[in-house]
């Protein structure tokens, strides 16, 4: 202990000095981080980064990473998500994941569990190519899917598939807090082989008598109903927690699971206010009277039009917007803007941008379906 504090004090003093306006002037215009990162990538003072300390597979379709964030990492609250950037073939790919650990956990560990999709560029890279020692970029923790204060007396934590991570984070946080209210932990996955964190949750239940748990397989062979296994029902909730009346629910999973929980809680008094929900496949925005596909949404101007002909720049202009532009031929990058969602094709290169939150050039891009732009 004494050694760590005697080391930490000068380190903290050095950090304060490096954050001073004088240092900012001397290392301008790039900033001190652009120099420190060349000594060691995670020495940055402003950019949150983390070193991968372990990579392992709990199940065939997932990968679990343990990370050591640097001093710029400001922590998170249980249930929140974090954008994680990883460089693949020179390109930084950013995805959002929810940490699975306790928010009171030691600041040296951040735990992520990611479902691996067969066509998933990032998830497959994390599973196949990422090694301990690699460096990841972290964004600030975000999201309102967090535990209420004061902590609920009765809480049902429900998750589907990889939606387990934020609710597990809530469970671990409550256990760390010595919370003595009733907690139910209910997890759904396709098969028992896909159950995530079962041994860990069993171990928690062994020393926390107020915790009850249920792991369910929805597509297990032997189910009489064939494909449809034991999905969430009011009876299942009742069996574990008694009357949902008065209990809080926190659910993270596919939209169907969230809808089931909402439906069950809606039947209780004031139940709708006691459901915290997060879904990781966002529902499609449908505008009445129009096809669900082929809408252009301009988020900052709060305007939406049906996809027409021409480039995104031309379509934005005919919708009455005045985005910045220069050459109108793809060379000057004045019209580059953030695409929040949807797919667009660059007519010069034929490249398609599909991932959310990518920068695109309006003057040489055409929409390929629904598109949401930050203009």
């Amino acid at each position, binding site marked *: 202990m004494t050694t760590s504090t005697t080391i930490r004090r000068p380190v903290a003093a050095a950090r304060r000095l490096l954050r001073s306006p*004088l240092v900012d*002037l*001397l290392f*301008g*215009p*790039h900033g001190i981080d*652009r*120099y420190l990162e*060349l000594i060691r990538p995670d020495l940055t003072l402003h950019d949150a980064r983390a070193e991968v300390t372990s990579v392992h597979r709990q199940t065939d379709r997932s990968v679990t990473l343990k990370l050591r964030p640097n001093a710029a990492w400001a922590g998170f609250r249980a249930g929140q998500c974090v954008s994680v*950037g990883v*460089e693949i*073939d*020179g*390109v*930084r*790919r*950013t995805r959002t994941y929810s940490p699975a650990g306790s928010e009171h956990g030691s600041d040296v560990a951040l735990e992520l569990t990611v479902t691996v999709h067969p066509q998933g560029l990032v998830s497959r890279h994390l599973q196949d190519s990422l090694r301990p020692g690699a460096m990841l970029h972290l964004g600030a923790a975000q999201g309102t899917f967090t535990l209420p204060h004061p902590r609920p007396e009765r809480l049902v934590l429900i998750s589907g598939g990889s939606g387990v991570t934020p609710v597990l984070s809530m469970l671990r946080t409550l256990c760390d807090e010595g919370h003595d209210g009733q907690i139910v932990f209910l997890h759904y996955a396709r098969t028992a082989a896909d159950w995530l964190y079962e041994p860990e949750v069993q171990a928690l239940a062994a020393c926390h008598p107020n915790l009850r748990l249920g792991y369910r397989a929805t597509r297990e062979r032997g189910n009489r109903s064939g494909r449809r296994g034991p999905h969430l029902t009011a009876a299942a909730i009742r069996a574990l927690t008694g009357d949902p009346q008065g209990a809080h629910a926190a659910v993270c999973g596919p939209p169907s699971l969230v809808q089931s929980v909402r439906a069950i809680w809606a039947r209780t008094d004031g139940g709708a206010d006691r459901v915290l929900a997060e879904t990781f496949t966002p529902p499609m925005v449908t505008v009445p009277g129009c096809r669900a596909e082929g809408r252009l949404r301009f988020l900052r101007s709060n305007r939406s039009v049906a996809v027409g002909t021409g480039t995104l720049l031309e379509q934005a202009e005919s919708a009455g917007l005045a985005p910045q532009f*220069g*050459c109108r*031929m*793809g*060379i*000057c*990058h*004045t019209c*580059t803007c953030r695409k929040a969602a949807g797919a667009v094709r660059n007519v*010069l*290169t*034929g*490249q398609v941008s599909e991932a959310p939150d*990518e*920068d695109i050039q309006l003057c040489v891009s055409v929409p390929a379906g629904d598109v949401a732009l930050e203009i």
Partner: protein
Amino acid sequence: MPTRHPDLTPHQTEALARELDELRGRTVAELGERDAEYIRRVIKTQRGLEVAGRGMLFVGFLPPAWLGGVAALSLSKILDNMEIGHNVMHGQYDWMKDPSLDSRRFEWDMACPADQWRYSHNYVHHTHTNVVGMDRDLGYGILRMSEDQPWRVRDLGNPIYATLMALLFQWGVAAHDLEVERIEAGEIKLSDKREILQAIWRKGRRQVLKDYVAFPVLAGPGAPFVLTGNLSANALRNVWSFMIIFCGHFPDGTHEFSEAEVEQETRGGWYVRQMLGSANLTGGRWFHILSGNLSHQIEHHLFPDLPAHRYGEIAVEVREICERYGLPYNAGSLRKQFGSVVKKICRLALPWSTGEQRADAPDADSEAGGPAEPELTLAA
């Protein structure tokens, strides 16, 4: 009279555009790890040179350390402004999605605010390249660089202005967006440029404070060595970047265009104008890196947002395409190209240097002196 161009039919112009688009597409598809590693290696070298240069200047009372410090710091500033800053701000590395290499956020170690540069260079200059009256880089509103710009008495000072501009180039670039020629002509007032001036002040002040106050003061008794070292490094960077940039569009054999010629210009026409209006410099690997690969000015103007370290490879194909279409490919050594620029600056200072006088301006510098009879129709 605009300079004469080789003849291409509209059909040929479009075929040329398709070939160049295809070359561009092939390069974009290849971008990846190699390009990311390259730019990061250059950045690491630049930051290393910067720290080493400033360190050496702190012990600048030793003459070898002072000289070494000036050399390292000038190289750092040259790399920062040219191979890194200019190219990153063109969006050449936007595909990496690294915020520190994002064209819209990047700032460079020189007086000109990046935002102003992005407008005046990426848009105005690269879109309207060499169009007299539209491309403000044709003399930067100060120098007479084309026969098509009417001669005025003040143009007698052309060589003097050019010398001052070379020594103070970073401030010249910073003042570019003030459009002094329009203020001089009474079209606009200085107060119309208030926001531009404020941005220059904010950026320039920090640059001055850093190089001429903060670092010298930190050196204590070594302050004079640090101050003179920083001054020299900035001046060397200024002169070098002036030379490279003036070799981009002003050597003998480059063409200028009239506004009428580019009305309703096609993409192919734009490509042809970029090739005719730009000139390359020949040299070794380090010469190209230190010129920010602007030595491959033709390739840069065809594909301004492709990573510049690829221009050398692309040049082989561009040259071959030029030969096939009978287009000139203007390339020469720094000595030859800059020599012709200096001559032009001096010649255009004189009132009798009119377009007619140099109607036979030799295309001798161009490697492929294709047929040059009828005028090229750019607007196909």
